[in-house]
């Protein structure tokens, strides 16, 4: 921290004529100073400190953290709630990503065909800009077992209404689908932008060769969309591993830890149970998972290559 503060004050107090080899260094430091300060204090330092804390038994109080080595990491191996939490998170990620991606591709193709106006795009994007908390509360109300409109409609059709958030096997799919509702338009828009980059000549050539609609979709559209899909998938998978707000507002991890997703578990351990060191260790685990996921996706989907190039 002190290393960054030093050059900052220097440039402010003593503007010396820049030497040729250093180019615009002095003036650049002046311009970058606030961002660099914020970067070091609120990004770099906490990253280092977070890794350090994961090796301690810190409880969040003013007491000096005690070094416990790998104890937190060993504890993770035998923590049944963490195991359940990882499974719940994985279930959430899979449902969320699969449904969202398929719907988004469908919407993007439909936009391309029938509704590409900015108004249509704006409507689809609106949920993405509404706070998670608001989205969660509105759906919590619509899915209310007694008075909610969803159960009302289901019962009118003659089926049984469900306790969407109270049923251990329904709660994760419910939360996942709420977030599909929020993000599908956004994802569709990114894919739609990718569709716009595919030259029509490719389709015309395929049509001349007698390729049907479905065949064109699977042999042209999907392969040429790959770079966009890689980007969209990495961002959405990394994002959905970090689901928190919806859980915090609706179920608080319940019933019986069924929706205790990993980020909620971290906050719960660190802040409600004062296991700060353990919370930090789990957040290291989450960080590692996210890096691995991104790398694997990149390799598997060969994101750098485009068949157009």
């Amino acid at each position, binding site marked *: 921290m002190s290393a960054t503060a030093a050059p900052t004050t220097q440039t402010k107090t003593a503007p010396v004529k820049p030497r040729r080899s250093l180019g615009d260094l002095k003036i650049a430091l002046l*311009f970058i100073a606030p961002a660099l300060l914020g970067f070091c204090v609120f990004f770099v330092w906490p990253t280092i400190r977070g890794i350090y*804390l994961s090796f301690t038994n810190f409880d969040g109080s003013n007491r000096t953290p005690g070094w416990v080595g790998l104890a937190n990491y060993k504890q993770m191996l035998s923590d049944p709630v963490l195991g359940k939490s990882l499974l719940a998170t994985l279930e959430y990620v899979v449902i969320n990503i699969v449904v969202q991606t398929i719907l988004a591709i469908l919407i993007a193709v439909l936009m391309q065909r029938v509704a590409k106006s900015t108004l249509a795009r704006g409507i689809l994007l609106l949920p993405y800009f509404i706070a998670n908390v608001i989205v969660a509360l509105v759906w919590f109300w619509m899915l209310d077992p007694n008075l909610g409109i969803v159960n009302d409609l289901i019962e009118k059709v003659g089926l049984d209404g469900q306790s969407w958030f109270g049923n251990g096997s329904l709660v994760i799919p419910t939360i996942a689908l709420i977030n599909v509702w929020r993000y599908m338009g956004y994802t569709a*828009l990114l894919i739609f932008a990718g569709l716009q980059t595919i030259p029509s000549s490719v389709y015309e050539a395929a049509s001349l060769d007698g390729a049907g609609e479905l065949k064109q979709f699977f042999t042209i559209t999907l392969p040429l969309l790959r770079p966009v899909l890689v980007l969209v998938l990495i961002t959405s998978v990394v994002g959905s591993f970090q689901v928190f707000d919806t859980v915090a507002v609706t179920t608080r991890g319940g019933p019986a830890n069924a929706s205790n997703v990993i980020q909620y578990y971290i906050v719960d351990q660190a802040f409600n149970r004062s296991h700060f060191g353990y919370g930090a260790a789990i957040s290291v685990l*989450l960080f590692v998972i996210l890096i691995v996921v991104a790398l694997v996706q990149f390799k598997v989907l060969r994101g750098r290559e485009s068949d157009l190039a």
Partner: protein
Amino acid sequence: MTIPPTTDTVRDPDLLDRPLDTDAAGPVAPEKKSFSLGRLLAWVVTGLIMLVTLFPFYWMVRTAFSNGSTLAANPGSLLPVNFTWGAFQRVLGLSSIEDARAQGGSGASIDFWLALRNSVIISLVITVGQTLFSAMAAYAFSRLVWPGRDLVFGLFLAALMVPPIFTSLPNFLLIKNLGLINTLPGIILPFLFMTPFAVFFLRQFFLGLSREVEEAAKIDGASNVRIFFKLIVPMSSAPITTLAILTFIASWNEYLWPLLVARDASAQPLTLALGIFRSQTPGGSPDWAGLMAMTLLAALPIILLFVAFGRRVVNSIQFSGIK
């Protein structure tokens, strides 16, 4: 699944410049389309998706204007049940405890205006600070030549990989050590100076600006500070405005960080006040009308911002996604 036949192979280069009020209900190039079952199906599915997207917003409004105590009588009614402004009066603290109870409220009060004030201050300060400081950094990364530039920029970009929860725990300790728990500066500080995305977003635009005007200004003896504020910023007003809007929306919607830092109502933004409003009402029969009135009021600024700047925001999303 039936997929409509390809008749639309025309790519539209003016797509990004289409005005917001373009008719969404009509085909974009109707003269080229012939009616077919496939197209009809495509329209039906599109209509359904729009309905699913918009219905929760409608339901929020419908419930907010309902009378909470009689809501149970007609849960499926498409119109507000016993139309009333009561829920809004309850949320804004304008109705008496008796009236609030009579309409299904808890009688407990929530300081909506305080939460609104907090949200406005937090979002405005973060927006101004983050946009200005990120623009300054983006200028240094794109228009100035200095040793170590690409290395430092690479470090900024790498920070995009760090999940927010990872930095949140240690940042909480830092804010606590600074004595800023339960204060607005405590909520604002970590977001005030930069985000890697903001720097990256603006750098892309600055890289594309013409060098000539800048050189001319330099010959006239203008300093870099002057060039930045008098040339670069005005020339990039569109992307800077877009970034400011995105930053404002993100700060307005932030939940996790205020939840950690603002345990006391005095510093809580609307996102947290909503949670408190919910927990005040009895678990068995929550004040749904009041809650929906409050979510509507909390979402309103963003919806208005979106209506005003929708086109710009929509286009920027595609930019940020494709880059």
